[in-house]
């Protein structure tokens, strides 16, 4: 059922993302930095808000005039800052909701990700409370409409000694004291929002909270252009003796207000609470079936910390050793937050297929797909090559992951495939093992799209291991020209076919035999 909803949406989303990949490239694609962009907009709102606050007068009679003055008399600074404040707030709503939708469509909200998903819900409430509270402070007709409707909405709960809306019955009933309270709320609620954002990412290892520099610059330039072309302006001053008949609503924040007018406060509370509970409940509807967590083998773990450094969810911690072995620390896996991606297996220096033992044992392993099975699968796939190989064709083995391009669809005669939970699980020594022993002429690694690994860092770590930037790295003796990568989503099958064709042609241009270590010297 869930798959039937997610699959077609994934196809649309991935197509859309592909269009963005062309001009922005995978690194700057804004759809892969939605959370970071939301953070970034928050900071823009905070900085511009501080500037606007300097010139803001906290009183019923002075607020409107002070905002008008900074908008028109100081358009080049205060006016632009006000526009930044408004438009960055709007942009934050947009990126937050697309971020949420994307995580749902890509199925990245269940399992260990439930905490991050659920803590996103209070963020949305706080975001709206912050944004709407900002509109009140301008104290124009829009502020009057939003303020009275908000008060009436809150009054429905009957939690206040006097109805809040009574503060806005007549001009005389709205006091400067009440206005100061509104200002306090507009400072306090965003601070709570910031705390909520911190909680949102606290369980994520290396959260991306800053967009790439190019994207950050482009975003600011966009906001600047928008602020100059269409500066944020006020409505007429508020007048509590008059009813508001027309408002230019900010639909990103005020979409619920027409619904309030149509259906009333009770219905809107019901919708808001039901929707919030429903979203919080989604990770268990149904819950993600997680395979067994990674296991540490005490005898083979030397406490090198590479699994700890590479784990994308912080499930591995290093603990003091108590088994008497001559290493100070040992890895420990928290099964509640382990996603069984196997990246830790790929990081372990003992994960090598060269060992002669029938049963490979490594420092950290997946119970449902052990390293020894990966070697057996690799050997079994490679064993098929001579049988299917057309004469003169280079032999290729592809390693593919469960969430990227579907490697099972590959039907090329000179290609065999092996799947694993995440490409980050593949220790570089496997490439060495295949090429050194002349089991294939080339190794092609595939995974999710760049910057969009389902397990967050599988692609990054793999590329860094191949280039020698990260332990365990691919040994220097391995001929790099025989290792190829192709990153793509489940819908990018055609791209992989093209890459296989290109890799095959590339391998044809290389000398047939792979030189073994020492062979050159002997020659």
């Amino acid at each position, binding site marked *: 059922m869930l798959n039937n909803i997610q699959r077609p949406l994934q196809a649309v989303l991935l197509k859309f993302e592909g269009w963005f990949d062309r001009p922005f490239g995978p690194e*700057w694609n804004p759809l892969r930095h939605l959370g970071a962009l939301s953070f970034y907009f928050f900071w823009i709102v905070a900085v511009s808000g501080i500037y606007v606050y300097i010139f803001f007068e906290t009183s019923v009679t002075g607020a409107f005039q002070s905002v008008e003055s900074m908008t028109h008399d100081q358009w080049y600074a205060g006016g632009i800052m006000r526009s930044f404040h408004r*438009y960055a707030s709007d942009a934050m709503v947009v990126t937050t909701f697309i971020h949420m939708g994307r995580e749902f469509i890509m199925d990245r909200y269940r399992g260990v990700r439930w905490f991050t998903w659920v803590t996103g819900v209070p963020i949305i409430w706080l975001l709206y409370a912050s944004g709407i509270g900002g509109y009140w402070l301008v104290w124009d007709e829009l502020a009057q409409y939003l303020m009275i409707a908000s008060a009436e909405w809150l009054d429905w709960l009957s939690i206040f000694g006097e*109805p809040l809306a009574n503060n806005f019955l007549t001009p005389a009933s709205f006091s400067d004291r009440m206005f100061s309270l509104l200002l306090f709320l507009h400072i306090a609620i965003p601070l709570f929002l910031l705390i909520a954002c911190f909680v949102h990412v606290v369980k994520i290892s290396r959260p991306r909270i800053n967009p790439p520099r190019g994207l950050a610059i482009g975003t600011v330039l966009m906001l600047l252009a928008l602020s100059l072309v269409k500066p944020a302006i006020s409505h007429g001053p508020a007048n509590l003796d008059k009813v508001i*008949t027309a408002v230019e609503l900010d639909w990103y924040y005020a979409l619920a207000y027409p619904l309030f007018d149509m259906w009333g406060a009770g219905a809107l509370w019901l919708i808001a609470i039901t929707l919030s509970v429903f979203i919080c409940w989604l990770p268990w509807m149904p819950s993600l079936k997680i395979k067994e967590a990674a296991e540490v083998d005490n005898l083979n773990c030397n406490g090198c910390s590479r699994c700890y450094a590479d784990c994308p969810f912080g499930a591995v911690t290093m603990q003091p050793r108590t088994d008497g072995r001559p290493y100070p620390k040992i890895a420990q896996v928290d099964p509640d937050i382990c996603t069984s991606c196997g990246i830790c297996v790929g990081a372990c220096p003992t994960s090598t297929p060269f060992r002669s033992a029938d049963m490979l044992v490594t420092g950290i392993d997946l119970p449902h797909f052990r390293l020894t099975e990966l070697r057996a699968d690799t050997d079994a796939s490679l064993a098929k090559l001579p049988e299917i190989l057309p004469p003169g064709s280079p032999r290729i083995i592809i390693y593919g992951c469960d969430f990227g391009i579907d490697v099972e669809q590959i039907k090329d005669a000179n290609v065999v495939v092996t799947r694993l939970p995440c490409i980050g699980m593949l220790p570089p020594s496997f490439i060495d093992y295949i090429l050194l022993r002349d089991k294939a002429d080339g190794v092609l690694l595939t995974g999710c799209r760049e910057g969009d690994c389902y397990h967050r860092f599988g692609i990054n770590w793999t590329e860094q291991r191949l280039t020698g930037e990260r332990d365990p790295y691919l040994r220097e003796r391995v001929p790099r020209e025989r290792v190829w990568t192709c990153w793509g989503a489940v819908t990018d099958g055609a791209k992989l076919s093209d890459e296989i064709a290109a890799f095959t042609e590339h391998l044809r241009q290389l000398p047939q035999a792979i030189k073994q270590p020492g062979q050159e010297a002997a020659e």
Partner: protein
Amino acid sequence: MKRVLDILGQGFAYFLFALGIGYFASQPTYHPFADDQALVKLAISHPGQRKQACTARAVDHQRNIPKTARKLMDCPRERHPVTIELKIDGKTVFNAAAAPSGLSSDGRSLFYERFPVPAGSHEILVKLFEAETAKGSHYKFSQKIDLKPGEIAVVGFDPTAKAIYFK
């Protein structure tokens, strides 16, 4: 050439984003209220009568209580709900009771209602009952009013003057 096309593509994407942000930040205009209407607000916070009258405490009972805690009268706090009836041009638009606020049901009964009416002349009649409605209203107010388009008129209660007012 590709770099130029990339920059143009990025610019187009930013343009579309800015267009969406800029447009929906203020458009389309929303009309929460018809131009030819006025609004009558009923905003009254008023305590109902106590359900039981105060009674004098027995002298014997007082002897067992510390001097600082002694009270001559025993006054149960619970109050009656307040009922308000509002008629505009002879038609009852509101007739409801509000329970006393507070955990001990001893606070004010709170009313806040909005009634859009066509601009023009109207006859307003308000009755407030502090206890059971059968015993008759405790406060009554009637007035002919003339409301301009978009005007807000408030029906309230002045606790000092102990009277319903309209302004």
